[in-house]
Structure formats: C-alpha cells, structure tokens
C-alpha cells in the first residue's frame, strides 16, 4: 500500500518536473484565467469535486504545457476516502491524469468482517481531449466547451470484489463533458454523461450480480463565481447500482473552491455519497488542495 502511494507521489512529481522543463521554442506557460482550469474531481480529472468537466488542467493556453497535483481527503460517517495524484494539460487540448485512491473502512471494516481499517485501493489513469468550444471566451455562443475522455481504473481487492458480487476488478469509464462559463451571470455550468460499470467509483469493482453492463450516468455542477478567487456551487452525480448486497445511490456536494494564490486552490465541500457497502448515508467533508501551473 505504501509503495503504491510513493509511486503516485513520484509520478506526480515527475509530471510537474516534465511540465516545468517543457519550454520549447514557441511554448509559453501561464495565461489561463484563475480557476478556469477547474479543481480535481475524485477520479483525478479536472472538474469539480464529483463531476469531471470539459476543461483542461493547468494554467496553460494553446501555446503551453501546464500541470497540477492534488491531495484530497473525504472523511465520511463510517469510511475515509483519500486521493493523491497529478495531471498534465497540453496546449489546453489534452489532459492526462493519474490518481491513487484509498478507501479506508475504519471501524466499519470490522463489522463487514474485513478487519478494522481494511483498505481498498484504486489507481485511475485518465485521458481527456477537448473537442470543440471555449468555455470562457465563447460568450456570444451557446456552444459549451466539449471534451471526451476515458478513465482506466484498477482496483486492488479482486477477491473481495468477487465475494460481494462484483464482476471485474478493473474497468474503463467513457465520458462526454460539456462545460460553460456564463460570464454575464458569473456562472459555471457543467453536464457530463458517463458510461460506466463502476461500483463506488470502482473501489468495489465493476459490474455486479444485479447488473453487469454499461449504463449512462449523469454528473453535473452549477457554480457561481462569487469573487475573483472564490467559486461556490453544488454538484450531483448518479452512480450505477450493480451489486445485490448493498444499494448504491447518487451523490451530491455543496462546494467552495478558493484560489489561495494564483497556483494553489483549496476546495472544501459538504458531501453525501449515499449508502456505501450497507452503511447508510455516508456524509462528510471533501477537502482538496491543488497546486498547479
């Protein structure tokens, strides 16, 4: 477990090093407006906290390479979710991300017969491509910024996943995200359609005894640009309900993203992820710190 985390940190640092040294001739860093690169969603892509957005991470424009690293903690009623990762944005066009997620069962682990503080781990490798539109500058068009993406997810507890009815311990999500900044109203809107079989983001595997096929899920955000450095909003995300042993519902959050400095963003949220592994209504905080350039 520790080695995986070390591995994640190493990758994150390597991503940042690569980005900072990538000053080719006509390349240039910076230029994106504050907060328009989004924060980090739970699976590591640029977005809100729960929803993945069409924006590309980093402060770069079409002439540069940007990057960000994040550390995220989601303490819930009976569980604890932590994530660490990094992502690179290339010419405001392509984003590649890596996120390592740990799900600590704390006391609930004992009740589930797994042992106290039993942990599920998952690595998520993501790629996103902006297809059309500019969320910020196309203010005279209805067309949002649209991106498509994939997330390859690899969970580590295959035996337990199968024991609870999960079908696979690895899976791929596909999504289309549409994001628009409505400047005249100081709003940020996002709607994303995700094809997924993931149980609890993939931590409990993919597909299940109840349902084992891709079904579209919705995730969306609505936020207000309250000051130049503060965004507040709400998000909703539906999740598949594939496993017979425990119901899974959608999740939501109410969040505030605060740009402490140009390159550092703190996201705090109240979040409700619904039932997780027979434990009812998992609510708590969502705290994420992101550094980027």
């Amino acid at each position: 477990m520790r080695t995986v985390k070390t591995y994640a940190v190493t990758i994150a640092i390597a991503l940042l090093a690569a980005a900072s040294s990538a000053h080719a001739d006509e390349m240039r860093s910076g230029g994106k407006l504050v907060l328009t690169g989004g924060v980090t969603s739970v699976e590591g892509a640029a977005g809100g906290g729960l929803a993945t957005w069409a924006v590309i991470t980093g402060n770069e424009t079409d002439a540069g390479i940007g990057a960000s690293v994040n550390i995220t903690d989601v303490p819930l009623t009976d569980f604890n979710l932590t994530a660490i990762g990094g992502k690179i944005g290339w010419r405001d066009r392509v984003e590649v991300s890596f996120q390592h997620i740990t799900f600590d069962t704390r006391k609930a682990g004992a009740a589930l017969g797994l042992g106290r503080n039993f942990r599920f781990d998952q690595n998520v490798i993501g790629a996103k491509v902006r297809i059309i539109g500019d969320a910020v500058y196309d203010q005279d068009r209805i067309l949002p910024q649209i991106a498509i993406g994939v997330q390859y997810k690899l969970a580590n507890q295959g035996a337990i996943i199968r024991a609870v009815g999960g079908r696979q311990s690895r899976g791929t999500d596909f999504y289309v995200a549409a994001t628009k900044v409505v400047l005249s109203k100081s709003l940020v809107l996002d709607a994303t359609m995700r094809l997924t079989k993931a149980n609890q983001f993939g931590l409990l595997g993919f597909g299940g005894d109840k349902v084992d096929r891709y079904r579209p899920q919705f995730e969306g955000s609505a936020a207000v640009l309250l000051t130049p450095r503060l965004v507040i909003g709400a998000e909703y995300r539906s999740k598949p309900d594939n496993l017979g042993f425990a119901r899974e519902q959608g999740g939501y959050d109410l969040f505030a993203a605060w740009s402490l400095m140009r390159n550092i963003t703190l996201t705090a949220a109240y979040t409700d992820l619904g039932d997780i592994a027979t434990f009812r209504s998992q609510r708590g905080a969502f705290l994420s710190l992101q550094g980027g350039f």
Partner: protein
Amino acid sequence: MLSIILAAAAAVQTVPPGEEPVERYTQSNANAGAKPFSGDEMLKAFHGRDGINRIVDDLVDHLVVDKRIADIFKAQDVVRLRRTLKEQFCFILNGGCDYSGRTMKEAHKDLGIQSADVGALVENLQAAMRKEGVPWFAQNRFLAKLAPMKRDTVER
C-alpha cells in the same frame, strides 16, 4: 508636384493631436466588436465616462509595463490606443460615445497576439475595474461582451 502632395494630404483622414496617421478605413460603431448594453445600469456601475476613462488610463499604464505583453505595445501608438479604447468601452457600456477605431481584426492584424496575451490583458483590465470599484458581477457582464473578440485578435 506640390499639388499632388496637397491632394494626397487631403485624402488622409484628420489625425487627432499626438497620434500617428493610420491607413484609411471606414469608421463605424459596428467596428467596436460588441453590441452596447441597454439602459444606464452598466454605465453607473462603471462610474460614468469619468470612471471609464480612469479604468482605461490605468489599464494602458499597466499594459505597457507588464513584462508578459509590454513588447506588443512597443511599436504601437499608445495615444491612439488610449483614445479608441475609451471610445470602445464607453460605446459598449452605453455611455453615449461613438467608436471611431478600426475593427478588432484590423486593429490587431500582424501583432502576433497569443491566447496568453489576451489572458494577461484581461487580468490587467480586471485589476483596473477592481481599483475603480466596479462591482464583480458588473465586471463579468462587461467581460462577457469583450470575450468573443479574442477570436479576432489571436492569430495562429
């Protein structure tokens, strides 16, 4: 010979004091690149023409020294820029001005402007509006009018 020179001089549009002559073009408010707001709500938020003039002066003062973009303005007629920007902002904010400058495309031709330059300009403008005390939501309404101009100013 003298008559030819005189005829040529007459053909050139009047050059405002302190400005360099520019090639002849058709003046029109349509060149401003955005339709004006209606009503006087936005003009009030910007503290009238005086507020607009202060914002543009502060903006231009900062643009010409901003290391990221100062080079772009080195070969530019900053006197003319100041005047036409004031007209453009005043026109868009429904302050009763006419815009006498060129279209956004013509005015930015061959300047080699990149997206990051536009970002830097927006940041300077935001700072100038903040200094003038323009409310944040009014700032964004105004930026929403300017944002699409990026397409005509950035050259690949």
